């Protein structure tokens, strides 16, 4: 517990010293708040609110981001999509991290499980990310839930391998030997000493991965594995807007900018997290 608190405190200290990380965190916080507030401020019915007479209008005072090919307000669509994209990608990374950490720790601690688990991750990692996600999403059918499941399948092996490697290197460290001489039992050593030390680099990877997952999710729904035109999602907004790219470039620009800003902010946070969770840089 104490370790987590000091880590958090020194992490905050590091954050305040880095302007870029501050900018990233600020940007992400704004996006997160906007995304969280969006469903309560914008009526969900807007996605079915079709006005063909007012379609493809350029941005103006009434429609800040213009309107799309159904005549819907693009600003509202992008905001609703922020909610969906952010919560989905955070959830995907969270679930993948938990699965990966648990299985990775098992592989690291139980020699009998090591080879089978690692060969399974090999199978997953041998197929390119996008192709594997496409295959799973295609089998499961088009929906944001299925897309998320597909992405969890793609991401957990990365965490599993990372955690296994961490456990293997941590358990060979001298302090573990010292604990053995002290008479500290195996389970206590694992849960109180090895796992807390092993897990930090794994957690440090998560923020940057949220950005990667977000981009992958947008890419997948852009090529048609997304939830369809009536579910606002940044990737599918771009997909439907690209037909009008010369007539109404704002259809592509605004959702694209949203993806860009989100992944930029997450990358900045990711760089900071990598430093913050590195015990050598802690002070």
């Amino acid at each position, binding site marked *: 517990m*104490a*370790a987590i608190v*000091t*880590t958090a405190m020194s992490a905050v200290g590091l954050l305040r010293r880095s302007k870029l990380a501050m900018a990233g965190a600020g940007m992400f916080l704004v996006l997160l708040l906007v995304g969280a507030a969006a469903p309560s401020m914008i009526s969900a019915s807007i996605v079915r609110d079709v006005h063909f007479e007012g379609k493809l209008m350029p941005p103006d005072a009434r429609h800040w981001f213009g309107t799309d090919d159904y005549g819907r307000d693009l600003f509202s669509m992008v905001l609703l999509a922020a909610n969906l994209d952010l919560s989905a990608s955070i959830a995907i990374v969270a679930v993948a991290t938990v699965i990966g950490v648990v299985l990775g720790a098992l592989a690291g601690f139980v020699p009998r499980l090591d080879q089978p688990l690692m060969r399974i991750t090999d199978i997953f990692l041998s197929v390119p990310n996008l192709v594997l996600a496409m295959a799973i999403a295609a089998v499961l059918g088009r929906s944001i839930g299925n897309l998320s499941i597909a992405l969890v399948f793609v991401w957990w092996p990365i965490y599993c391998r990372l955690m296994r490697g961490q456990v293997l290197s941590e358990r060979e*460290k*001298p*302090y573990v*030997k*010292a*604990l*053995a*001489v*002290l*008479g*500290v*039992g*195996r389970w*206590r050593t694992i849960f*109180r*000493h090895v796992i*807390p*030390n092993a897990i930090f680099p794994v957690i440090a990877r998560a923020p940057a991965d949220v950005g990667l997952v977000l981009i992958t999710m947008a890419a997948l729904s852009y090529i048609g594995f997304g939830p369809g035109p009536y579910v606002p999602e940044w990737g599918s907004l771009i997909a439907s807007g690209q037909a009008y790219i010369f007539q109404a470039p704002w259809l592509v620009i605004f959702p694209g900018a949203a993806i860009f800003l989100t992944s930029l902010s997450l990358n900045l946070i990711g760089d900071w997290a990598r430093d913050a969770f590195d*015990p*050598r840089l*802690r*002070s």
Partner: protein
Amino acid sequence: MSGVAQPGETATLEVEGLSVELGIGGRWVRALNDVNLTVRPGEALGLVGESGSGKSLTALAVAGLLPDNARVVAGSIRLRGEEVLGRSEAQLNRLRGRSLAFIFQNPTSYLNPLLTIGAQIAEVFEVRPELLLAEGGDRLGRGARRELAWRKVVEHLRLVHIPDPARVARQYPFELSGGMQQRVVIAMALIRRPSLVIADEITTALDVTVQAQILSLLAELRASLGMTLLLITHDMGIVAQLADRVAVMYSGSVVEASDVMSLFAEARHPYARALLEAVPQIDGDATTLRAIPGGIPAITNPPPGCRFHLRCARVFEPCVLAVPTPVTLGERHSVACHLYGEGRV
């Protein structure tokens, strides 16, 4: 404390005929050959030898910490009469926890970077609550027991001369210097009142002034607590300062064992002599350091006969032919050299 023990008394540590092999390049190579050591209660034994002589391997075997590629092929190791070899991990844990403390070479890597100094030392009490029995630890509630443990932690940090121990107990290992970390490790070892403390090259990673402080701390603790010590080092100066007895190891065997005074006065084994001559003399007028020519033989391809004969100044024909067996020269003084075998003394 003086190392004078009654003959009938159980030795704190008894290593008998210990032979260990290492798996190197797909075959088993002898790394320790028939090692015999005895440490009596209150005694400090210095185990000296150059790198690769097997002194650290011996210590690891005693602590049951041999690496995975090592196996014991013969011998026995007894801690206060209890056999260490052939125990399960759980039994070994219990035995070690009760009777052994190990202070390692590099203190930084032997502390968990995520826990405060106090939390790490206090863990000893969580693993072995019986240590608090004297203070009535069994009758206290959880919170009060923790407080008592914390008090004892601070008290032991003070014992190893850590300034402001209450503050240091709340600090993390990386906030302390190497010398302070080594003191913490020593406090952690002492708090368990172990029968035997193994100190493996504990000052090697420290700079000279800190080394001196740590050594005088150990000498002081030995005098005040009656600590029994197995001191692994390559530094004859440390042996002279701290040890009562000394065992010189060469290429996996103990070549000479005696009390420190007689070894420094009249070492018998040519290797032990050469080692002592290699110690730089601050008041001597020699301008070059004496060294022993050659290097320790590779254990994968040891020479026949006495393993030292290729570097020995007094080599003669039996040395090439047979491994010398230890000969007793006086009370607790033995030497393994053909010069002293079969009535040649």
